[in-house]
């Protein structure tokens, strides 16, 4: 699906929402959250440098996550997130004389900003749609003169549900289509791809929640987070 079609769909949804009733759930769209993540990836790449061939075999690593959102009026919000992890990787270096395996690591960072809209279904379920921009960066050192650094930025579209069966719990799922979906470290490019995300959150008090997040994609990760909700704080109201 092209970004232009995604944008068209989003603005159509925007127009419909402008005339829709306000969301009725207790879920806040003004929050700030922090978390720790464990990431694992099978993104790989191979490059030839002179007479040597360098192949990456990434493993897993950990990092941090920060995200936030600010409600705009009663139906829309601005959101943003940042994820960074240091992931261990082996490099298999094959030369005419020998084959060697060298251990190392690389930095993976991704950040996004998005504008979203909310459609309530009853008083416990919200459908949300987002259109945003995502940047992904793989930052390697060099094992044998190669350069696997890869970064790009592209639009992405997300749709999902937030469900609070009781005021203390929240379940969220989302499907995301992105222009920076699958990284090919051999060529240093990205393909369009999709990923899914799910989260469960327990609100210790009304405005502070402990969460467990699971996100797929080419660098899937699981995260534990703490969310600080700002209740009905909204920009523009």
């Amino acid at each position, binding site marked *: 699906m092209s970004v232009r079609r995604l944008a068209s769909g989003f603005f159509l949804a925007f127009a419909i929402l402008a005339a829709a009733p306000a969301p009725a759930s207790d879920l806040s769209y003004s929050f700030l*959250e922090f978390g720790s993540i464990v990431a694992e990836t099978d993104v790989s790449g191979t490059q030839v440098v002179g007479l040597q061939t360098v192949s990456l075999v990434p493993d897993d690593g950990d990092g941090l996550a*920060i995200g936030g959102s600010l409600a705009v009026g009663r139906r829309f919000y601005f959101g943003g997130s940042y994820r960074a992890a240091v992931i261990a990787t082996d490099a298999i270096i094959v030369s005419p004389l020998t084959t060697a395996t060298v251990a190392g690591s690389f930095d993976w960072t991704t950040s996004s900003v998005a504008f979203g809209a909310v459609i309530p279904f009853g008083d416990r379920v919200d459908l949300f749609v987002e259109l945003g921009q995502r940047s992904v960066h793989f930052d390697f050192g060099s094992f044998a003169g190669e350069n696997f650094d890869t970064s790009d930025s592209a639009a992405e579209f997300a749709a999902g549900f937030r469900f609070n069966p009781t005021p203390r719990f929240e379940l969220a799922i989302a499907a995301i289509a992105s222009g920076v979906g699958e990284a090919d470290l051999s060529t240093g490019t990205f393909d369009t791809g999709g990923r899914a995300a799910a989260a469960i959150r327990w609100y210790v008090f*009304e405005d*502070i929640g402990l969460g467990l997040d699971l996100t797929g994609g080419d660098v899937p990760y699981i995260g534990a987070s703490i969310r600080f909700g700002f209740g009905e*704080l909204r920009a523009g109201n």
Partner: protein
Amino acid sequence: MRTNCSRWLPMGPLTLALSLLTARADGAWDFVPTLMLTAESDDNARHLPVDQPTSTRAAFDARLRAGRFSDRGEAWVEPRIVADAYADEADRNLEHNDLFLRTRATREMPRAFFAFDSDFRSESVLRSEIDDALEEDLPTGSDTIETDSGAIGTFTDVRDRFGLSMEGGPSLSDRTTLAFDTSWLDVAYESELPLERADFENLTLGMTLTRAVDERNNVAARVYGMDYTAPRNDNNSRALGVEATFERPLTGTVRFSIDVGVVRTEFSYIGAGFDRVDGVSNGFTFLFDIEKQARATTYSLSAGQSVSPGTTGFLAPRDDLRLGVRHRISPRLAFAAGVRAAAIDVGENAVTPPRDYLRTTIEFDWALSERYSLRAGHDRVREDFGVGGGTEIESSSVFVGIRYQGQSRAPSARP
């Protein structure tokens, strides 16, 4: 060598003028003297890792808080001197007259607030490098930034510390406040020889959005940046952090707050091998705080990790634990106990060794009259610092003294 307090002296009248200007001419004058005479016996006054003869010290502590207050704010200036004398001739090189000058001004307006602090201290490293376990005043302004190095090392050194801070902002609504804050810290030692300490300057700028979500819960988000320079290791570091705070009462007298954030630090310094070390680090910060304020008993417990500008020569992560309990046993007898622990990391490839310390203090206070009281207590410090397994140092002291506490009419007066 970088001395001394003279270059900061012109700031005194300026800060005082600004303080009084902030509070303006309304309100009433308030003069609160506090005098203390204390005798203490310390089994390791120099904090050395070998047996030491016991040192006996007498200290005279005099301060006067003078200012104006009204229902819309306050402004005061507080000069203080702590003069001491040791009984043994061999300890005379430990004597030092510690000088302090603090000012504070706050102003509440219908739709905004403003606060200003200045804090100058010139004190022996025997008292400046290991934070007190029992605090007399709640820290405000630049005083909230921990800058103790956690190690005494060369015991005759003197630290000069000057901090300026301002905070203020508008009320965006009945429940939402926006505040901007800035603080500047300049710390200098008369001797730059010890590895444990280094001069530094630090500028902090922050912006905080606070929201009273409902009648009980307050949530805040803060963005801040720090610019740190330490000449000794040519450290130039910049940090950018985001943190959120949740605060809520648990009972009528007990409140708790939790603060979580991330901070990204870009650093550049001369490392142990005299090579330049450049890099970026990401880290978490957090603070858990619970406190009780009741008629007979108050306590507070805070534990957290922060990235602090330090006299270690680094913008370094540090873990802090602080516990304080004050209990009025009877109308005349009060008991206080404090625990202070810190672990200060400096990262890899640094000249300065990491260190941690634990300090405990207990104190009994017997009121002779409304203004006079007798004090007695015990203070113990344990340091652990150094390279390759570390050096452990213990120091234990007992103290007795008499205190005169003037009465304040200001609503924010300490008890």
